[in-house]
């Protein structure tokens, strides 16, 4: 009898261990949602689902003093095949840059100057807007260009200095055509809002940190209306990107090519 009880207790103990381990794995699994889905949900907050236009104002600061200001109108449309956005950027201010255009479709990057009527192909390394790279201004679906990995859950300060429970994602480029080789991104665990991101060069050094903030209802859901970009080497070099005048705006596919640039003049 004693032997039977001992055997039963031993068997139950083994089952208990198995059960605890299984439950533990289940808990961990529940706490580890798919990283790619988290990233895609965050993309959906940054990027409206249909073609749209938005005004972007860039305020640049060096050592706490404003050094430059540009205003752009950005027209974005997702490509039916790749899912990635194609973007037309029209310079609105300052006066010397009015009506200059930039077209970005993947790495197909063109700059058009209405004065000389010339369209010049740019390399991704050529910057037209000071600290902000061309890739910072255009609309990007990160989930299309990066493979996401869940690095953990942590409390992190958002752009309003409020602590948020967040998923920390590690993004590795799957396409050579992206602006940044590697990204660390914090996404709000409750709302899927992007909180901040750190962008790294291939060499591993930090290029810039971006905070997504001032969420407001725009085109059907809460979206960030301000991004604060801090330079990785010189933290006193700060660019504030403000997004306003969101509107649904279709752009025909035929317009998103070099030979249409001389004709682009939104009414």
């Amino acid at each position, binding site marked *: 009898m004693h032997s039977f009880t001992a055997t039963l207790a031993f068997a139950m103990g083994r089952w*208990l261990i198995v059960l*605890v381990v299984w*439950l*533990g794995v289940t*808990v961990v699994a529940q*706490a580890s949602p798919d990283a790619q889905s988290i990233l895609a949900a965050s993309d959906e907050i940054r990027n409206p689902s249909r073609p749209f236009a938005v005004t972007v*104002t860039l*305020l*640049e*600061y060096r050592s*706490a003093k*404003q*050094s430059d200001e540009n205003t752009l109108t950005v027209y974005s449309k997702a490509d039916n095949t790749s899912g990635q956005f194609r973007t037309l950027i029209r310079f609105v*201010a300052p*006066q*010397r840059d*009015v009506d200059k255009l930039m077209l970005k479709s*993947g*790495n*197909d990057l063109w700059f058009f100057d*209405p*004065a*000389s*009527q010339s369209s010049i*192909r*740019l*390399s*991704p*390394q*050529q*910057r*037209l807007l*000071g600290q902000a790279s061309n890739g910072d201004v255009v609309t990007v679906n990160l989930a299309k260009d990066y493979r996401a990995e869940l690095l953990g*859950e*942590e*409390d*992190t300060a958002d*752009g309003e*200095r409020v602590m948020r429970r967040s998923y920390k994602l590690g993004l590795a480029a799957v396409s050579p*055509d992206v602006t940044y080789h590697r990204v660390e991104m914090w996404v709000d665990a409750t709302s899927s809002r992007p909180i901040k991101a750190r962008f790294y060069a291939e060499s591993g050094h930090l290029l810039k940190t971006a*905070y997504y*903030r001032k969420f407001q209802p725009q085109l059907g859901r809460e979206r960030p209306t*301000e991004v*604060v970009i*801090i330079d990785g080497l010189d*933290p006193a070099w*700060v660019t*504030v990107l*403000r997004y306003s005048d969101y509107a649904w705006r279709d752009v*025909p*596919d*035929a*317009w998103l*090519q*070099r*030979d*249409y640039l001389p*004709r682009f*003049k939104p*009414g």
Partner: protein
Amino acid sequence: MRQIIITLVLALGHCLSTKAAANAPAAPPDDLDALSLADKAPTASMQPARPWRLFVEGAVGQGKLRDTGSNFSIYRGSIDFRFDDHVAPQLRVVFSDRLDGVDSDGVPPGDNVNTLREAYLSWARTEDQIFDFGRVNIRNGSAIGFNPTDWFKANALRSIVDPDPAVLRENRQGTVVLQAQQLWRDASLTAAFSPKLARSADSATFALNVGATNPSNRYLVAGSYKFSDKFTPQLLVYGGDDDPAQIGLNLSGLIGDAVVAFGEFSAGKGTTLVTQALRIPEANSNQQRAAVGLTYTTGFNLSLTAEAEYNSAAPNGDQWHLLAESSQQQVLSTAQALQDLPTRSQWFLYANWKDMLVRRLDVSSFLRQDMQTSSRTLWLEGRYSWERAELALQWQLFSGPEGTVYYAVPQQRTVQLVLRVYL
């Protein structure tokens, strides 16, 4: 037993979340400073984009003549206006004009010249079919310093105030055309007809000068197709009553993240530059023109372009040296009017550094090295921009041994200070 399991599971979950919270980083001090700065950033007052651009420009300069070694002065005032807007939902009006008043005791002497660059109506019949009528600056070409496929550049310059290739493309007269463009998702086809309107150029200050831009009936057909993000070639055919058919090709592509490669080619029957300049009767022969190059951009936004240029219609070194000095001057001035290469081959090196050392200071420079006669011209510009003004210092040098192409230019060097104010 159930209690034990629940306790164990809760403990495990608590351990996991506590571990994550313990690793939670606070925002770094630099980030907090940046966010505080952004909090105080002023709310920009959004000005609607104006359909016009107007600036005035004043320049003072000095140069040195090669023959006499004497200095000369340059004073210039310019008004530059551009309007571009819809006057009806599918109708767009473009008007672009510039008036230069130049006072100089050098070569060439100062003159007052108005350049009507563009004045045309554009009608979008549908969103992918557009028609233009009027004076249009039709400009093709993927190269920077020499554009073999930019056929309408010939005789388009009325006033040269800046030798920067980008400015030369801007400050020129368009040609009067009837033009149509059909667009597809990845392709475009444009056809233009430029009619004969007058036979000779008119140098009067406010002349429309259609004799320079429309001296004969001409046509241009240009088509492009996007094979991939990195490759969109353009094929062109050009000709007219006085111009044998020419075929042209423009190519550009990316090499990695920092290099753009480009090539521009044209071929067709034509006469040589010397026979055009000296008005010697000659049968047409096969001619080819080409410009190929690379633009490399550094991590600190300095763009460097190296371009090799070729013109089979221009004299080689031996042919150039056989010309009398007055004939060399004629060939040089004809090449300048046609915006063609004056000798068979040249190297063109161009540098542009945006925000050099300080924000808003752009430095540009080019070196044009003639490979046939070993002479060169060097140009350097520093330009600082404010919100509504720009100040530029420009310097140009023509150098080479006696008898060479750039030795034939009357000026040896010039320096100019230019102030532009946007109104």
